[in-house]
């Protein structure tokens, strides 16, 4: 029997990995994967907390988050493909047309 707090700790670790990934990586696809990791870390936290709270709210939340994540994947990939078609290269350092 593993206590819920271990799952929460794992989800915090996953979330942190995702944050670091978005910050240090320069490829939009990898950054996007890191964002997905963050969303799934939240999912894990929802399920673990839901078990502790003893209600189904957490698991229901996960359903909606997964559906939203799928929609986000669709929009995100479409945008990334569009940029790639124009640029033929893929790095956020290239997104420098506009500067303050």
């Amino acid at each position, binding site marked *: 029997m593993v206590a819920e707090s271990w799952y929460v700790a794992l989800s915090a670790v996953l979330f942190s990995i995702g944050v670091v990934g978005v910050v240090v990586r320069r490829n939009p696809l990898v950054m996007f994967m890191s964002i997905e990791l963050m969303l799934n870390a939240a999912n894990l936290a929802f399920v673990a907390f839901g078990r502790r709270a003893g209600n189904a709210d957490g698991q229901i939340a996960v359903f909606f988050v997964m559906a939203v994540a*799928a929609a986000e994947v*669709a929009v995100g990939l479409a945008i990334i*493909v569009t940029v790639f078609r124009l640029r033929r290269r893929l790095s956020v350092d290239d997104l420098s047309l506009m500067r303050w």
Partner: protein
Amino acid sequence: MTFAFAALVAGALLGIPKLIAPRRLTPVKAEPFECGMDPIAVAEGRFAIKFSTVAIFFILIDIELMFVWPWAVLYRELGWFGFAEMLVFLGILMLGFLYIWRKGGLEWE
């Protein structure tokens, strides 16, 4: 004791050549796959972009099953109310599908 000795020997075998062995990097050695033949193309290859479009549509439609499945499990308990709700849900989904289809999103060529 035995373990420490083994670890020491293993470490030495790995570590000493790193310090004293000469390193000469040639183009042939730098290739990812040495078999005497020159590689023709990048190993990963490239997918046609149209593949990604279909993949995106697949994800979108696929994830909706997540909502259909619990409904199917509880079909009898949910009764007509659940049935109507699911019709509304699928109706909206079909509107999106119709849009994909009519806009030519499913054309392969």
